[in-house]
């Protein structure tokens, strides 16, 4: 398959789309929870990009699950291990952000950034 839709093209396009979409949401939305959703989308895009760098066409997961499996038939394990870290950090960031938002809502009674004094730009 040497067509225009190779797997790495699809993954790169998807990741770029997710990152741009997520950043657009963060820049334009005023609702804080929507901004966190945008951050999460951009995060997912970065993860997809990282995983796709380790991809090798036609190869399997880097697990020696069958006896005859050769090293040359596997994809790169290092980006996958890095993405595991990245997912956990992304989870921590969004959980902490949501906790902050809950506190902010209790203090100000709104989620709209333009209505919260001291957050304008």
């Amino acid at each position: 398959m040497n067509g225009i839709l190779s797997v790495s093209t699809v993954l790169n396009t998807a990741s770029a789309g997710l990152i741009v979409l997520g950043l657009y949401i963060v820049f334009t939305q005023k609702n804080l929870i929507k901004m966190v959703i945008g951050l999460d989308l951009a995060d997912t895009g970065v993860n997809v990009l990282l995983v796709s760098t380790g991809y090798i066409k036609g190869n399997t997961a880097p697990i020696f699950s069958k006896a005859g499996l050769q090293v040359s038939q596997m994809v790169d394990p290092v980006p996958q291990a890095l993405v595991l870290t990245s997912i956990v950090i992304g989870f921590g960031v969004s959980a902490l952000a949501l906790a902050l938002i809950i506190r902010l809502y209790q203090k100000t009674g709104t989620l709209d950034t333009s209505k919260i004094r001291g957050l304008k730009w």
Partner: protein
Amino acid sequence: MRKFISILLLAGFVFYFATLAGGLMIPSSSADRKSVGLEILSRAKGETGAANAVTSVVVLYRGFDTLGEVTVLFLAALGISVFMKGTGEKRKTVLDQSFILKTGSRLLFPLMFLFGIYIIAHGHLTPGGGFPGGVIIATGFFVILLTSESVHFNKTVMSVLEGLAGLSFIGLGVVGLLGPGNSFLQNFLPLGKFDTVFSAGIIPLIYAVVGIKVGAELSSVVYAMKESK
């Protein structure tokens, strides 16, 4: 103005990705690949004894990094507990869900717990490990907390469990440091029979510890968020 600036920024990003895309089209055959990954793949089986090469990277080759990752997760959980502390108002009436939901969640909880333990115990053989397994266990607690408002955890037990798990992670690393390998998180146990549950030296132990830590941490996060309504 704000929209204009954001669209300008986004256009910059799109341009950046367009230029990057050429370099990211990774060589799609394994013959022209000369990377750390190939070296690790060819050595991991003999050195770590784990069938899952990703696990051997996460737990042994980059084990110190995983310790940092666990620390970041701990800091996030700590921050959430601090923010949520004392925000809950005492509710007079306890709202429980219907009998069917309560019984169903109590039926589901042991199964989810068991599945989490299974995922943790097979981290070195199949995709999975301490982080996903811990999240599955925490999801079990989450289901219970969602359906029955009157359920209360012993927070002290959770904190003690979490602290002990974190200490044992560092302790395992220090034992490796003192052992013959002379480096932090070095494997000091026999590798065992390849591709069985009791193999791969300290990897299952570290993943068990990580699983307990993540499970306890996320359960207390969910509990803190629920208490603060």
